[in-house]
């Protein structure tokens, strides 16, 4: 589960965060500032401090925020001096932007704010379209503006080159003031409220955010151009409103709600990708005329509101098409504010005790949730006081939570409470006050906080500010400027209305709230003579950066003291429970016991004879003959124990043909792999033997229910493993692979696999499944395994096994965690132009379906398209995908002259058809031996392969990765004991990258998104990130997509499936000289520490069928013939990725061979 944080502000303006994996509020690092509002996104948090200025807190990350400044140097040729800076009067500036229209001298490019710094000086960009210019970066043309080429021709009269300089945002993990450079007249008056959201509207530019603010005068402002590379945005622009706004809330997608002083809500309409500011406002009336809306919070498809009587309301029927929703529903509880965070999860601050409450049970199907649950974790400062949360726990039964069911409740004692009040710090008085309030003021409506204040002197003294502002606010005090607000009063409108709301609130239906404090569950707290620092009082909470999912287990609701060994440690260091002395002792004693009680008595007869155990059941079988169809079969698994104690099993499949009963049987010790084949309708799995692999025709069986299938799969898998004596965690040398469904398989390499002669055919490799869902997996021989999910989340292997459908015996007890993955399903909307109506969804009879898959052959409608299998559930609605290759117009359309053709993103006269891509996200939740490596999403990873005899122990394991944004990263601190490593080191590049690979001798190769390759110089254990990139041109007319580096071999793959070997690599010239073609029909390549080459082949023909995505092993690879000859076909199809980079096991070679290998081959190390 990814960890993320909840942001909150206490009544004193201090900002705290609470991690989803944590159990205590952590004070924000920058403690100087006091805040009244915060609004968080995943990567940053915006806030309004007490000086009414806007501040931005950008969370630190290992990847820097860099912005590339560019300037062009333009020159014209003249007969006298050749190319020179003297241009014609009609020409562009000699230093300009890319268009040539703007003057842009290098020294005139300034940093936008004090929060930026230059990374280096200006330099010339030598790379031109993936090729080095080798001429100082100059590109030539006949005249400006024109198409530039690398080569100088006879008619090249002008030339230009690009200068590059990077600037870097430096104010991370601190509150950075947003500079106001605007014209003083335009300068917005002090801000009163602020909300960020909108990150789901569009992904361009990366990390775009909508930041909305409300000034004290009730005007609404929008911050322009906020994105990841420009976190501060550029300027505020005024958005007209029909009235004075007090508060605004911007959801993650296109919902924006605001509240007016008059108590109505404003809803922004017309928000879309091209207009994230929206176009107009609609008004939504409050639930009741007497109590207007005071506060709203919008999510993706929910809106929650608080009315002036503190009641909580849920807006029914809100979505993109109907942002106003249909009606209000009153919810339980009374809150001062609520905040909707990620996944429409909701937090609130109770007006009674000022605690933060979490709405439990919010799921996509039940967006209003079930119950309010108080977050009762302590703050860092009060960790030592284990009793501090007891009074907060008492707040828990306010909403009738399960804590109350203990049955030992006794009447609350006022003396207890009051004596506690006396003991408390001044700042702790407030909750008591409100608790008292709800208890003693039941029904007595007129009593305000002033009267309460006067009854308790301490209270009056402790909170002068609070009691002062109370009467002040009981008038309808709207324009509450900074002058009238004392600086120590960071909270404004919400709190100001408090007394009014209290008085108008018939506080009926409140259960006793202090009951639990007398439960005696927390004797420590009662015995402690001095309870320091009771629970914090909160003013504001923001969940915009807090990813809680319906299935998440949070530890916010229990008091934790000390470290219990069962607490799942999120770090991968070995948990204390696994190393504890008691555990060792039990293992040791059991071994001794077995020795003592069995050693000398093995000849005794067993009391119980092992018998055949049979499991039978009904399944469906995809019959071997035509017409192929599912037929009902009876199956039986017979397990027996041989004389040597080994277990073996036979699977019988009984079927009827021509009313004759027949069967086929499979010896499970011959089975090489069991693959779940889940699709929209069937729970089926495929069973392969070497013979079936060669035929490309597995035994396919389907079960009626998912449970039934999992039971069979787990049992068969266990039997296969038992007969092959494979169990426990895979060895460090294991070969890992992933299918196109994201299922993970692992195989123990036999030494024969990479032998010179008599090598093991790879269709005989036995694969067993690991829980989890990944797209890419990479391993190294020291047991470090990393994976990347479809949603680009990085995962590290925990050392467990099992998970997923493998429960119980087939799964390790520890190191199994929940894993989720998200991917998109795409369908296409196709239209044809006709002269009368323009583009319509009526095509020619010969056309494709008007809603189809990418090929156009399959009809796919929005309503009819289901998630890829029953494991997946939809998590979004259909949306237009603009990021398709070829580009789109503003509405997402791509045009072409006819189907099928190449599409482009603009309409021309010749285009008669168009299509657009719709995407919908779906999600899968499973479990496996994987832990997330937060927070950077990756698109590729490579771990240094190590040869078996190399003694790499001691120093860290080199691991390189490419982030989903194309940044190249180097992981520090990776070791056997800490496979997740500690931090990323960013390796600067001039363009986004796609693939990276590191060889045994620290040779790092990478492929950029433009298809060219790069070699990283000087990488070593002491200089893990190397020093600079050497550009390596790609094979002619090919764009490389992937690279893999073994011991000396470097292989690359291009987008057309060609596999290339880098020739001419020598120790003195590690970049090599040329690409040599090895094979086509390749989708993925993995080169191992023995320079062995394994690929996923695109198509392989078997005797029964074709398979796409087959594991293949390059034959005949030898030191003097590193390219090998021919392929050996292994498991497939449907395989997507393989990593052999951990396998350094070889048959021990004799000495002469050793010499041959080391003496004459292209020795690199």
């Amino acid at each position, binding site marked *: 589960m990814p960890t993320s944080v909840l942001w909150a502000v206490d009544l004193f303006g201090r900002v705290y965060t609470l991690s989803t994996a944590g159990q205590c509020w952590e004070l924000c690092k920058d403690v100087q500032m006091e805040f009244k509002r915060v609004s968080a996104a995943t990567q940053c948090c915006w806030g309004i401090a007490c000086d009414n200025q806007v501040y931005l807190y950008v969370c630190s990350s290992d990847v820097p925020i860099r912005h590339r400044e560019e300037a062009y140097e333009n020159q014209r040729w003249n007969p006298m001096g050749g190319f020179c800076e003297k241009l014609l009067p009609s020409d562009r500036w000699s230093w300009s932007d890319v268009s040539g229209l703007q003057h842009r001298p290098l020294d005139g490019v300034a940093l936008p704010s004090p929060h930026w710094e230059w990374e280096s000086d200006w330099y010339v960009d030598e790379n031109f379209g993936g090729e080095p210019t080798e001429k100082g970066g100059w590109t030539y043309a006949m005249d400006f503006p024109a198409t530039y080429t690398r080569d100088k021709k006879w008619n090249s009269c002008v030339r230009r080159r690009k200068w590059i300089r990077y600037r870097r945002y430096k104010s991370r993990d601190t509150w950075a003031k947003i500079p106001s450079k605007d014209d003083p007249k335009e300068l917005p008056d002090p801000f009163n409220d602020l909300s960020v959201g909108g990150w789901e509207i569009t992904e361009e530019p990366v990390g775009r955010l909508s930041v909305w603010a409300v000034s004290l005068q009730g005007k609404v402002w929008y911050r322009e151009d906020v994105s990841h590379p420009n976190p501060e945005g550029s300027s505020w622009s005024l958005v007209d409103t029909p009235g004075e706004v007090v508060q605004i809330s911007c959801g993650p997608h296109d919902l924006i709600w605001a509240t007016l002083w008059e108590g109505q809500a404003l809803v922004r309409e017309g928000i879309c990708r091209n207009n994230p500011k929206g176009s107009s406002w609609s008004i939504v009336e409050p639930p009741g005329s007497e109590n207007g809306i005071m506060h709203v919070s919008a999510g993706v498809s929910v809106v929650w509101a608080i009315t002036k009587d503190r009641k909580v309301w849920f807006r029914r029927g809100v979505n993109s098409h109907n942002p106003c929703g249909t009606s209000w529903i009153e919810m339980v509880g009374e809150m001062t504010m609520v905040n909707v965070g990620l996944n429409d999860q909701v937090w609130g601050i109770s007006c009674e005790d000022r605690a933060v409450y979490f709405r439990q049970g919010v799921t996509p199907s039940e967006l209003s949730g079930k119950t309010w649950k108080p977050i009762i974790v302590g703050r860092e400062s009060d960790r030592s006081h*284990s009793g501090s949360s007891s009074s907060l726990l008492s707040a828990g039964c306010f909403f009738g939570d399960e804590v109350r069911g203990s049955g030992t409740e006794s009447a609350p004692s006022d003396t207890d409470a009051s004596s506690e009040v006396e003991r408390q710090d001044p700042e702790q008085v407030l909750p008591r006050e409100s608790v008292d309030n709800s208890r003693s003021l039941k029904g007595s409506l007129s009593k305000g906080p002033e009267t309460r204040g006067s009854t308790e002197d301490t209270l009056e003294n402790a909170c002068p500010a609070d009691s002062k502002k109370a009467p002040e606010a009981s008038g309808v005090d709207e324009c509450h400027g900074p002058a009238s607000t004392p600086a120590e009063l960071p909270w404004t409108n919400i709190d100001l209305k408090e007394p009014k709301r209290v008085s108008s609130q018939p506080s009926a239906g409140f259960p006793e709230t202090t009951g639990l404090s007398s439960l005696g*569950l*927390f*004797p*420590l707290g009662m015995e402690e003579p001095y309870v320091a620092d009771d629970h914090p009082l909160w003013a504001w909470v923001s969940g915009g950066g807090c990813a809680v999912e319906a299935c998440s*287990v949070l530890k916010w609701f*229990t*008091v*934790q*003291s*000390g470290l*219990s*060994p*069962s607490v799942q440690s999120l770090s991968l260091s*070995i948990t204390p*429970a*696994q190393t*504890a*002395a*008691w*555990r060792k*002792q*039990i*293992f040791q*004693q*059991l*071994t*001794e*016991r*077995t020795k*003592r*009680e*069995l050693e*000398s*008595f093995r000849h*005794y*007869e*067993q*009391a*119980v004879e*092992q*018998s055949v*155990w049979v499991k039978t059941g009904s399944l469906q079988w995809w019959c071997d003959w035509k017409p192929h169809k599912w037929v009902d079969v009876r199956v039986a698994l017979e397990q027996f124990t041989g004389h040597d104690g080994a277990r073996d099993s036979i699977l019988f499949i009984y079927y009827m043909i021509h009313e004759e009963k027949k069967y086929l049987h499979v010896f499970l010790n011959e089975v090489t792999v069991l693959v779940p084949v889940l699709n929209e309708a069937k729970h089926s799995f495929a069973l392969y033997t070497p013979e079936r692999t060669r035929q490309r025709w597995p035994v396919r069986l389907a079960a009626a229910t998912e449970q039934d299938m999992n039971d069979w799969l787990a*049992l068969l898998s*266990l039997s296969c493993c038992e007969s092959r004596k494979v169990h*426990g*965690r895979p060895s460090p040398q294991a070969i890992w692979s992933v299918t196109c469904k994201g299922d993970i398989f692992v195989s123990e390499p036999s030494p024969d696999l990479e032998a010179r002669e008599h090598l093991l055919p790879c269709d005989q490799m036995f694969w067993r499944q690991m829980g989890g869902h990944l797209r890419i997996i990479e391993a190294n021989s020291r047991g470090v395994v990393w994976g990347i999910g479809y949603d680009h989340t990085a995962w590290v292997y925990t*050392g467990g096994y099992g998970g997923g459908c493998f*429960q*119980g*015996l087939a799964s*390790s*007890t*520890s190191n199994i965690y929940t894993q989720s993955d998200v991917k998109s399903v795409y369908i296409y909307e196709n239209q044809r132009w006709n002269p009368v109506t323009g583009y319509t969804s009526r095509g020619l009879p010969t056309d494709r379906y008007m809603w189809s898959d990418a090929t156009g052959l399959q009809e796919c409608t929005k309503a009819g398209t289901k998630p890829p299998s029953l494991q997946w559930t939809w998590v979004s609605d259909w949306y237009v995908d603009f990021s398709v290759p070829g580009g789109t117009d503003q509405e997402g359309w791509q045009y072409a002259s006819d189907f099928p053709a190449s599409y482009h993103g603009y309409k021309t006269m010749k285009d008669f058809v168009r299509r657009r891509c719709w995407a919908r996200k779906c999600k899968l939740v499973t479990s496996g031996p994987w832990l997330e490596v937060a927070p950077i999403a990756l698109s590729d990873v490579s771990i240094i392969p190590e040869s078996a005899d190399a003694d790499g122990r001691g120093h860290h394991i080199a691991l390189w990765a490419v982030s989903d944004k194309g940044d190249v990263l180097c992981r520090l601190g990776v070791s056997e004991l800490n496979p997740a490593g500690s931090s990323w080191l960013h390796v600067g590049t001039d363009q986004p990258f796609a693939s990276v690979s590191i060889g045994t001798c620290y040779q790092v190769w990478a492929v950029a998104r433009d298809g060219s390759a790069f070699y990283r110089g000087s990488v070593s254990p002491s200089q893990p990130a190397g020093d600079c990139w050497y550009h390596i041109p790609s094979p002619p007319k090919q764009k490389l997509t992937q690279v893999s580096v073994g011991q000396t071999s470097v292989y690359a793959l291009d987008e057309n499936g060609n596999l290339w070997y880098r020739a001419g690599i020598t120790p003195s010239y590690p970049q090599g000289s040329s690409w040599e073609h090895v094979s086509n029909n390749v989708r993925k390549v993995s080169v191992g520490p023995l320079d062995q080459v394994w690929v996923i082949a695109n198509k392989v023909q078997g005797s029964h069928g074709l398979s796409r995505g087959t594991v293949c092993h390059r034959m005949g690879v030898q030191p003097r013939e590193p390219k090998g000859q021919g392929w050996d076909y292994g498991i497939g199809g449907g395989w997507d990725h393989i990593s052999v980079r951990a396998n350094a096991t070889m048959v021990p070679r004799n000495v002469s061979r050793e010499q041959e290998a080391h003496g004459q081959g292209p020795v690199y190390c």
Partner: protein
Amino acid sequence: MTDDKDVLRDVWFGRIPTCFTLYQDEITEREAEPYYLLLPRVSYLTLVTDKVKKHFQKALRQEDVSEIWFEYEGTPLKWHYPIGLLFDLLASSSALPWNITVHFKSFPEKDLLHCPSKDAVEAHFMSCMKEADALKHKSQVINEMQKKDHKQLWMGLQNDRFDQFWAINRKLMEYPPEENGFRYIPFRIYQKLGLSTLYYPGTMQTKVGLELRERDLPASERYLPAYASPVLGIKTTTERPFIQKLFRPVAADGQLHTLGDLLKEVCPSAITPEDGEKKNQVMIHGIEPMLETPLQWLSEHLSYPDNFLHISIVPQPTD
């Protein structure tokens, strides 16, 4: 690193080498050789001694064959206690193989329950399972199971099928992720009286099925076995009931309870004082887990198939 799953296997496949000898007073037609067998620790005597019964019946006269029962050094062995428990409690300090005497006559009605068939064992076993789940999950898990699952548990035990048994039993070992363990830990603590304990024959309460008797008394003080007692008319059992109380795996402060915490609470005499000499062994499955071992872990890994932790407290052997 060894996995916790291996503990389950080791526990399940624990065997006690046993030598069965026919009681000397049984009348035989021909000489009855001793019978050697590996008894599964987790099973029950009457469930795994078909071979023994068959072996000795051959030597007996047909009319003398009645219900079989077992005795070790004068103590009748309760078939409804798991074999491993009987051994740990009564014979853990003696040499292997375990010498058990086989009787067909004079069934000690006061000490033993009758076991007419394996159905009796099954009924007893399933009722223990249900009681354990009542403690662990308010019976929710066992009640949600189907009849065939119950059958599979029993067949797994009866046929010594580890996989078959654990395929179902793992469900009984689960608990909600938000909890740190079971509601209560199902455990029973059995004590063997030390030599120093005063021994008043005939005065202690006898409750068939719940107690064990002392064996290691000096020969001079040892009373005749119960089966001989009708003649003398003396009650001979000197037994203590086992201890079973409600005990949670997690303390109120969130700390996991350990084996030591449990003993401190329910059986303080078993714990060696800090400066004192170790007098007792705390045994489960023939091993002595450290008192620091979390109880929840023990319950998940060292419970007998009936889902109870059967803990024996036996005097420290003096040699």
